């Protein structure tokens, strides 16, 4: 591990055309840390992902990914896109899908290095406990099984950063917990930096080091227990936000969603 942050942003603004989604973000994601990206719908969480992947250029400011400019197709990032679940009619074997993570971006067909690729694919599938169904049709697998194979696909290229855009949103509570546990275990074993976008912080609380809040055109980062408090979120967003905790330690953030749906209210 080096001291260099995995991702660093200085005065970073993002937007499309003249419209700004959020502005003046300054943060550093520690290498090997697990960060949850939280915030209301449409606040610009996926925009941040697009910047990191090099699919969108910053509107202003700087962003560095592993000490370099973001670039499309960066093999040092393993990515699971938002809303990735497969049509039941899609007839592609899970193992072949994971194989696309190895060399799916290359032209032609795989001629050399087949044995090496197959070993890497099998190892990646094994690391997410998906061996039992990897030879079945992707479209016919459950949401949890598909998510595990998506993760295997992201891991197969031996990345340094894992970028997961809402990997939990189609899962039930039990599957959410086992998925987060799996991500956390794999990340620790391989010393990966994890950025995970989520709607609900609760399944993540035990595992994350930092929270990156995206709301109302601003980004704020900190430790979960520092940032997810009524005082802190109210100060960051200069509006009353309430953080409620129930008897089991679950947190509920109230106030941010309303502000976004009535921006001028």
């Amino acid at each position: 591990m080096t001291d260099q942050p995995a991702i660093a942003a200085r005065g970073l603004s993002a937007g499309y055309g003249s419209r700004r989604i959020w502005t003046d973000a300054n943060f550093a994601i520690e290498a090997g840390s697990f960060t949850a990206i939280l915030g209301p719908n449409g606040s610009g969480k996926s925009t941040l992902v697009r910047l990191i992947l090099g699919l969108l250029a910053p509107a202003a400011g700087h962003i560095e990914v592993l000490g370099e400019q973001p670039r499309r197709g960066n093999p040092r990032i393993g990515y699971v896109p938002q809303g990735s679940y497969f049509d039941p009619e899609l007839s592609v074997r899970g193992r072949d899908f994971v194989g696309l993570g190895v060399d799916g971006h290359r032209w032609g067909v795989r001629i050399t290095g087949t044995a090496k690729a197959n070993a890497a694919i099998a190892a990646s599938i094994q690391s997410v406990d998906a061996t039992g169904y990897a030879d079945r049709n992707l479209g016919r697998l459950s949401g949890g099984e598909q998510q595990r194979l998506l993760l295997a696909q992201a891991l197969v290229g031996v990345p340094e950063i894992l970028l997961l855009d809402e990997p939990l949103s189609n899962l039930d509570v039990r599957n959410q917990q086992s998925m987060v546990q799996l991500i956390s275990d794999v990340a620790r074993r391989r010393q990966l930096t994890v950025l995970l976008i989520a709607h609900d912080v609760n399944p993540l609380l035990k595992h994350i080091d930092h929270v990156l809040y995206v709301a109302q055109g601003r980004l704020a980062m900190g430790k979960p227990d520092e940032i997810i408090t009524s005082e802190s979120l109210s100060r960051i967003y200069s509006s009353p936000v309430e953080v409620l905790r129930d008897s089991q330690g679950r947190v509920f953030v109230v106030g941010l969603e309303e502000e976004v749906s009535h921006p001028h209210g």
Partner: protein
Amino acid sequence: MGDLFRYEFMVHAFEAGTIIAIVAGAIGYFVVLRGSAFAAHALSHIGFAGATGAVVLALNPIVGLLAFTLGAGVAIGALGNRLRGRDVTIGIVLAWTLGLGVLFISLYRGYATEAYALLFGEILGISSTDVVVTLVAGVITLVAIIAVYRPLLFSSVDENLAAARGVPVTALSIGFMAILAVAVTEAVQVVGVLLIFALIVTPAAIAVRFTSRPALAIGIGIVLALAFTWFGLTIAFYSPHPVSFFITSLAFATYVAVRIVEPIRARATKATAQKATA
């Protein structure tokens, strides 16, 4: 059986049919995977206007066919794979170009036979020059499919993911439709514009019901397309009925048989599994 190859036109029919079946079986897999069956169907119909237009201008109909399918293919590819309402747009263009085709037929008197051949295929009228042209076009299409195989598979399965990995998804979508346009133009010679589905879509649609391994599915699709073409030609040789009828019927019958057998097989597997756990 020896009679079959005594006639030159039958030899040519088998040669061209074989090349076209291989191309159709291969590209068909991606047509099914990308959900572009309607686009493939539309390409052939739009090509019909080009072919009839070429005849009016005293050009080879294949030239007009290729020009129109290529133009339409590139336009459809540029619309993107995931665009909602894409099929409606394609259908609107399709209806207009078929109208153009009707106009062109009316402009050219005594054209009924050629229009009939375009609509339903004329594999028994293929010359040795046509076979060579088909072979060249076939090799080009196959090489193109092999060249884009991995990124095309990637973007067909998950376009967002492929784009993030650096795959040029829009260019690929256009390139794929251009390859399909050439394949459709070739296949029109065998089954005609109206029956293109039987060679390009049906074999692949059957293949993906047998396997979810992409390379194997392509292989099965090619074998099925070859079988439909060869058996169709053979049966037609000994009967007074058109080849296209036999090719399409074989394709249809196989598809129906697979759809009937599949749930029975699935139930049997389930029953065995339940017995094992009980």
